[in-house]
């Protein structure tokens, strides 16, 4: 077919029709209405995360949230940098959760697009980016503080201290359901699953909850979870803990738990798209499911100590634009932008070193869920993780509701040694990572 196209050559008729079509497209493009911005100056922020592939659920919803954030900020006049208003523009790059592509993406964002800050999911892509960060001094953020080490001086984890906040769910559960005394855990055997397992083990030990058997680690390529669930239920646990499983695992595991007749407590780090799980199981089965990521239409988020701007309106806008796609990360990157914006305006500059200094000044910063402190030397070798309160969520009548806010530092002050013990057992302390 293509050969025939080339062989037949370019006839006058074909040339004229093609030219007319192209001209038409050009004219149409030129006459389409364009948004006019009051500000001439632009500050660019890079979004380097998986937007396609299996890990996209922790990248794409975050970008969607950032676009809403940028629209609101720009409509309100933009960011004040040294007395001048700047429009915010996000430049996305799909790293496909691959270190090589992340390196190319970081290079593009820094050297071609001139971004002043780059947000990443972190994890596997970070080692590819780290040399670029070291040489350029660019400020990066990650959602996975396990990327932090004493060498990563320009990397911050300001939104979530995964998986340390999982202790709040266990602590709350132990207080509200003291009858629950036994648990089992399953997790994917990867960089997200293992530190989370260590955290849950520490939290269960601190709460006096007995582990009925060693955590079941399944391969990330697993698609049939019936054997995993059967093995967990064979010990008749009161709590089934799903660790930090991806949505692709949480959903089928819940289905299996439902099909195999489990009626006990389920605990998980995330429950992204939980409405779909309810559809596949039942409202009754999911009642009381405890996890860590709220829907932002929750009235509890209107409390005075919450720093996230207009959470209910943000959720409403998000749900309207992307129905059924609200997930754990939908708000997180936007909350990092709140922090970054405050630091930029405080520093009067968007340059990475000035922003980092303004952000960490005094050792505290406004986290989405309240004032928090820069922390992490014990576990990560550097105080670049922002830690404070974290919500505990339970599903009630088919809807996620915040049950309490708990302090991660308070828990750590009491049980820090337990956490370090279990992290060390799973080689998750910064000096144990290769």
């Amino acid at each position, binding site marked *: 077919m*293509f050969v025939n196209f080339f062989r037949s050559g370019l006839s006058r008729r074909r040339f004229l029709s093609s030219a007319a079509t192209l001209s038409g497209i050009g004219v149409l493009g030129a006459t389409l209405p364009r948004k006019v911005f009051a500000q001439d100056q632009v500050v660019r922020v890079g979004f380097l995360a998986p*937007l396609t592939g299996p890990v996209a659920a922790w990248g794409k919803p975050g970008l969607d949230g950032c676009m809403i954030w940028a629209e609101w900020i720009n409509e309100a006049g933009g960011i004040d940098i040294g007395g001048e208003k700047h429009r915010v523009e996000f430049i996305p790059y799909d790293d496909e959760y691959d*270190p090589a592509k992340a390196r190319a993406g970081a290079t593009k964002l820094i050297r071609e697009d001139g971004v002043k800050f780059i947000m990443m999911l972190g994890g596997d892509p970070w*080692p590819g980016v780290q040399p670029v960060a070291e040489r350029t001094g660019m400020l990066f953020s990650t959602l996975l503080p396990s990327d932090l080490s004493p060498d990563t001086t320009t990397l911050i984890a300001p939104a979530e201290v995964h998986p340390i906040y999982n202790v709040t769910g266990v602590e709350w559960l132990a207080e509200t359901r003291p009858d629950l005394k036994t648990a089992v855990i399953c997790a994917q055997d990867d960089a997200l699953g293992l530190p989370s397992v260590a955290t849950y083990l520490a939290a269960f030990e601190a709460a006096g909850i007995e582990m009925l058997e060693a955590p079941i680690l399944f*391969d990330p390529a697993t698609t049939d979870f019936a054997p995993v669930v059967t093995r967990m239920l064979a010990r008749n646990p009161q709590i089934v803990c799903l660790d930090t499983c991806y949505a692709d695992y949480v959903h089928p595991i819940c289905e299996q738990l439902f099909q195999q007749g489990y009626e006990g407590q389920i605990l998980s780090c995330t429950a992204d798209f939980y409405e779909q799980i309810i559809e596949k199981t039942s409202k009754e089965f999911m009642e009381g499911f405890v996890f860590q990521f709220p829907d932002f239409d929750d009235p509890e988020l209107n409390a005075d100590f919450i720093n996230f701007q207009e959470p209910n309106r943000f959720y409403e806008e998000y749900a309207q634009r992307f129905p059924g796609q609200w997930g754990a990360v939908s708000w997180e990157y936007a909350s990092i932008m709140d922090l970054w914006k405050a630091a930029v305006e405080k520093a009067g500059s968007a340059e990475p070193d000035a922003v980092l200094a303004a952000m960490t000044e005094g050792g505290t910063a406004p986290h989405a869920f309240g004032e928090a402190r820069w922390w992490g030397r014990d576990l990560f070798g550097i105080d670049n993780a922002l830690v404070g309160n974290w919500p505990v969520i339970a599903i009630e009548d088919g809807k996620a509701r915040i049950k309490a806010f708990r302090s991660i530092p308070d828990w750590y002050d009491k049980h820090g040694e337990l956490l370090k013990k279990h992290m060390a057992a799973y080689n998750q302390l910064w000096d144990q990572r290769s």
Partner: protein
Amino acid sequence: MRSGLALLAWIGVGVALIALPHGLSFSQQEILVFLTINVLLVASYRMLTLTGEWSLGHVVIMGVGAYASALYSKHFGVFVPAAMLLGAMTAALIAMGLSYPLFRMKGFYFLIGSFAAGEIIRLLWKRFREPFGGVKGITGIPPVPDVNLGIWDFVFFDPISYYYFVLAVVSFCLWLMWRIERSPVGLTFHAVHWQDKLAEAAGVNARAYRTLAFVIASGFAGLAGALQAHYIGAVNPTSFDIEQMVFVLTWAIVGGTATFYGPILGCIVLTVLNEIVLRGLGFEQTRPLIYGLLLILSVLFLPKGLESLVGRVLPRRATSRTRAIIGAEEKA
């Protein structure tokens, strides 16, 4: 006269390849480095397919070279270029070991067997945190030491410098593979593929030649892995999973495997399309959809690969050998 023109053409190609990175943006230079490494990978894959066997473990073998080179240089302090060669040799040795069970199978069974063998290796990397780093892999892999040649200061963090290094290595490897294919050994690979019974009747040990192709291809794949590992500075099991293998298969299928340049053409065209054109047009999130659509179209309308298009547009360029191979494929 004709050989003089060919020489001039090769000189022109060489000059173009040397000048190429200077005409690209910074990120395109990064992509060019990985593209050049992938050219070696896919060309080595074709070497394996010369004997008629298609493997699903080739990317894992690439990973063997990457892990081995990383470990030799990081834990034993081996000079990085030497570690790369040792990494390639390790990949070849592992392939030699795997060949004993794998070449008891043929065709589809070999394909599945190679996938299983590759998964076993990947699971070993995940399971043994010492020395493989578990699921997070190995980070902080030493880079190629910088070199100052007077006319050019090779700082290998810089993509242009590393591209020249990779280009030299890959060009030499491609020349080697070209020579091997044109040698009696290479002709025997073709014979084992197309006429294995006849070849065996003539005294050719088909299994030994399949093993030889597998080992040679694995050595080059291992070198590709080592080149990648010392540039990124990190390796992990996910980078060598079946998803990456599908990309290699796609390059080979879309490009075609009848000619030496077919898979290379597929790799270049699809990488440029996926990483530069679609990203540049703003299809950041819809790339897999468009990429998949184009693959389906290419299989429908170019079932013999991009190489057949080149062969028809430039019929006089196709060698008699190429035409013979394509003809044999058509008959088969």
